[in-house]
């Protein structure tokens, strides 16, 4: 009984630490595009992020949490020694958290998701045995790390191309923007709500038929699009500012759209990244409670709440500063470009979350930004940084793994 408490307390502590780190660091990438393009002020960005990260984590974060908790390690192999899995999950949390701390100090572009997956694979393969890892599942996850930025890039490319074709290349871009921006709002809201309802909501006890799900998504999306159209229509051209920049008012119209995609991005981020913190926590809790290595039990809602809450606290303490710094640096990403990147990334991430695959939101967003660049939409992209990101994919996994193995043996020796 006492051991159980220690396990859960440690797991909760490490889990909150991870969630806090995600909120302090990762969220900045999800929100900075909106701040950089001046669609949102920092204060508004914090509020949007807090609300939608939390909602995403609680409403749609279940499937990915499930994968992290029980999809990577073959639980049946350890039914005899459930405490091994507890040590491993604790070690993974601590390893990923430590690695993230070191890496962000050094300024390396690492991914929370890659760290935690690398850590779990590491402890399971070395600490328990090669066979303990469900390599098929791990293969799928690693493949998705290549596929998700590519997908987001391709979608972003198409979206920005459509923006150029439909709006920016015409003589009356403002009129056209006012006409088409609500359509983009509809698309953004529709995709995100639909995937959430179809894939995410079941664990909250809400199950809708497919027909109802589509209907609900259409209703919500229509509501947002109509409200958006109303706001957008009231934007008056600013002749003076337009003299210096013809697209000034057009960009303001896109700024309204970007508020919608920013919400979507925060929601998507919460739905995917909360699992990195609470997946291992949930695993520890279920084993400690039952004494069994079970892959059946559901994730308690309070665990999701802890994750969402941790992210919000991280956001409020350190995230504000990071958002400000990053936002200042990416002013190139005007609303017309930024929304294309955000919408593409959010869509990709929400779909991945729905299918339970943990992907890196930052890398997906980077892929989306490159997609906009491929559509000749960004003035200059530094390819050296892109290469460095690519290298970090490869380095982070063994780094997380090695640390997790170390911590695993320490915990096994020290803990009851």
């Amino acid at each position, binding site marked *: 009984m006492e051991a159980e408490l220690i396990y859960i307390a440690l797991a909760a502590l490490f889990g909150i630490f991870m969630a806090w780190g995600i909120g302090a660091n990762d969220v900045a990438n999800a929100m900075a595009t909106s701040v950089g393009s001046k669609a949102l002020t920092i204060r508004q960005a914090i509020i949007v992020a807090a609300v939608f990260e939390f909602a995403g984590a609680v409403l749609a974060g279940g499937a990915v949490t499930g994968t992290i908790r029980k999809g990577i390690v073959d639980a049946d192999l350890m039914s005899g020694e459930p405490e091994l899995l507890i040590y491993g999950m604790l070690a993974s949390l601590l390893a990923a958290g430590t690695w993230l701390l070191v890496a962000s100090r050094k300024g390396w572009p690492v991914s929370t998701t890659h760290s935690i997956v690398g850590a779990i694979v590491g402890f399971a393969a070395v600490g328990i045995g090669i066979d303990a890892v469900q390599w098929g599942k791990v293969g799928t996850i690693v493949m998705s790390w290549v596929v998700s930025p590519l997908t987001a890039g391709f979608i972003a490319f198409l979206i920005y191309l459509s923006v150029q074709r439909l709006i920016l290349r015409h003589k009356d871009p403002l009129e056209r923007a006012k006409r088409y921006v609500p359509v983009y709002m509809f698309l953004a809201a529709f995709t995100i709500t639909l995937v959430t309802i179809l894939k995410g909501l079941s664990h909250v006890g809400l199950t809708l038929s497919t027909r109802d799900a589509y209907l609900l998504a259409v209703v919500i999306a229509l509501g947002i699009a109509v409200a958006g159209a109303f706001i957008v229509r009231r934007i008056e051209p600013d002749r003076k500012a337009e003299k210096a920049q013809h697209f000034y008012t057009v960009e303001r119209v896109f700024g309204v759209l970007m508020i919608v995609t920013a919400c979507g991005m925060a929601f998507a981020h919460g739905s995917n990244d909360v699992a990195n913190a609470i997946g291992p926590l949930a695993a520890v809790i279920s084993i400690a409670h039952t004494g069994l290595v079970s892959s059946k039990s559901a994730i308690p809602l309070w665990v999701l709440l802890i994750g969402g809450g941790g992210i919000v606290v991280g956001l409020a303490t350190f995230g504000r500063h*990071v958002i400000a*710094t990053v936002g200042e640096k990416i002013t190139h990403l005007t609303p017309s470009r930024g929304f294309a990147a955000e919408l593409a990334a959010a869509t990709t991430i929400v779909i991945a979350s729905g299918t339970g695959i943990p992907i890196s939101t930052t890398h997906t967003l980077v892929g989306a930004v490159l997609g906009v660049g491929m559509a000749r939409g960004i003035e200059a992209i530094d390819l050296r940084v892109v290469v460095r990101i690519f290298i970090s994919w490869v380095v982070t996994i063994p780094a997380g793994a090695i640390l997790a193995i170390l911590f695993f043996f320490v915990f096994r020796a020290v803990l009851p």
Partner: protein
Amino acid sequence: MPNVLANIFGSSPVQPLEKHMDVTYRCAKQLNDFFPAAIAGDWDKATAVRDEIDRLEHDADDLKKEIRLHLPKSLFMPVPREDLLELLLVQDKIANRTKDVSGLVLGRRMRIPETIADAFLVFVERNVDAAKQARKSVRELDELFTAGFRGAEVDLVESMIEELDRIETDTDGKQAEIRAALFKIEFTLNPVDAVFMYKVIELTGEIADMAERVGRRLELLLSH
């Protein structure tokens, strides 16, 4: 703390290029003050204007170096890096020619012959107009990038370049007329002065030539 998303954006050359063109134009514009002073023999005023030209040309040089420094080969851009650097180079030459011609006139305390003075001042103005039109065209760069170098924005810039070409052709005509007028009176001048007078006309005319080449460079960007 460095951040992936922030660093992935290289520093954009667009705003600095526009700024460089602006400084270059303001430099060339000084000639509209410089030559009337020189013709009136007001060398104090001419020296003051020439100092301003020097300062602006220096500013343009600094901007040029800055832009080059922030345009590494690893940048991925919608238009070739070389074309942007070429554009920068011809923009810079407008300031260089301005400095050269004003330096020559001031250094030799040259007197523009009265018979061609009025025509010459109009000629200078037209050259400055060409630089102004070049600035106007370069100012469209950021819009061109936003629209992906296609559509209505391209038509707009093309019409600006056409206007630039018209101004340049106009300066060519005026240059020929002034040379003809100078030829008629050159025997009344000190031979060395006459030779340098031709040089002044040539250098001044090169301002419009360079402005036109700015247009050519922009056109190249449009064709990608």
